[in-house]
């Protein structure tokens, strides 16, 4: 039940895109088509889970014993960058189908703030390893939900007669704001 709570808090109530406003660059950048948003979502789920696992271990087994907690920003960036490179090399050779499906989004995610944020937040909340895993899964599914929904809306908006001064990003931001309002409705669900 506790893990369930962590998952839903990350998935809906504290949705990383619509409530926390992290990783907005990719939210607007790759949400013009449903296909690209799904590719990005898959890559985020994949990278976020693995990188938060590795950074949790590095923080708790390497930085804490040496009292080097202040180095976590530098180490996490280093770890995530190296990890994504490694994953890319591995997937290119072993699972080329998945590699092609994720395409350019895999290396792009290295610089996605959500990945780093989840590594930090899992530590700030003092989660155990299992809790941190469930948390990062919840966040990445929440990211996928928000970006795919947003892509659906933007595909419809591309056909709609929008006033000239709202076309493009202005209407996208307004839409994101309304979605954010809608997600606020989840607050208090399950007593969280």
């Amino acid at each position, binding site marked *: 039940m506790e893990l369930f709570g962590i998952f839903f808090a990350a998935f809906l109530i504290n949705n990383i895109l619509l409530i926390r406003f992290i990783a907005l660059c990719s939210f607007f950048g790759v949400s013009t088509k449903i296909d690209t948003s799904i590719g990005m979502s898959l890559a985020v789920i994949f990278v976020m889970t693995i990188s938060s696992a590795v950074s949790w271990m*590095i923080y708790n087994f*390497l*930085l804490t014993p*040496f*009292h*080097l907690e202040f*180095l976590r920003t*530098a*180490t996490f960036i*280093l*770890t995530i960058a*190296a990890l994504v*490179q*490694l994953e890319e*090399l*591995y997937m*290119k*050779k*072993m699972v080329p189908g998945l590699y092609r499906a994720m395409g350019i989004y895999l290396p792009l995610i290295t610089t996605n703030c959500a990945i780093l944020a989840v590594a930090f937040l899992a530590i700030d909340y003092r989660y155990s390893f299992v809790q941190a895993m469930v948390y990062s899964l919840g966040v990445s599914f929440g990211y996928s939900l928000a970006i795919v929904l947003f892509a659906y809306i933007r595909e419809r908006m591309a*056909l*709609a*007669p929008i006033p000239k001064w709202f076309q493009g990003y202005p209407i996208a931001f307004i839409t994101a704001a309304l979605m954010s309002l809608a997600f606020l409705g989840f607050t208090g669900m399950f007593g969280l």
Partner: protein
Amino acid sequence: MILTAIIVLGLMGFIFAGLLGYAAGYFKIEEDPRIAQALALLPGTNCGACGSAGCRNFAERLIKGEVPVTGCVSGGPDVAAALAKFMGVEALQGLCKMTAAVHCGASESQRRKKANYSGVRTCAAADLVDSGGLRCGYGCLGYGDCFLVCPFDAIRMKDGLPVIDHNKCTACGKCVAACPRQIISLIPCDLGVLVACSSHDTGANTRKNCPVGCIACKICEREAPNVFKVVDNLAVMDYSKTDIDCSAAIEKCPTKCIVINKS
């Protein structure tokens, strides 16, 4: 404290570097160097007109022999010649650059309307709603779906009709697919003449609907019998006959729907 920080971070850097270096060797994929060379010869626009998923995919299939050297549509004869030289095969003779042509000549003011269309302003949407208010069920709707889809900026809209810039057009076929009424086709670039109408209505009905439509009078068939043929109430031109003079047919066409193909 500073020393441990330096050692820990330095060690981590070395471990990751070693791991990546090792992995790069371990997961190395042997790639045919000819793919990169063939890719360099291609236009790199990834238009997809050849049927492959982008230029890279085309290059891979070219090396495997699945596609011919003339397969690149947007590259035209120049790229075909370069690829033929690279692959060591004879370049095919008589390869002609293609270009898009619009088979409708009715400008915005010439189109007769039966209703005002006020829906979504795209051709795809207007075509769904009873011909977008136009009397002619075959002609150009004028909302510029072809103009929007063209990746080479070769189409501009003039008086509600797309005008194609033959110098920019690479015959990728995106506008052909985008037009809900199929009035755009690819014809040989060096061809000077085309039938600017797609209406299969009977002559009398076409006359009612449009001042510049083909009324299937068969005068062109008489003037240039080998080139034109009226099929299903529409003059159809044989685009392989480029050398026959058909100026008489252009001259005599009563509705002037056989036009000089200008860019």
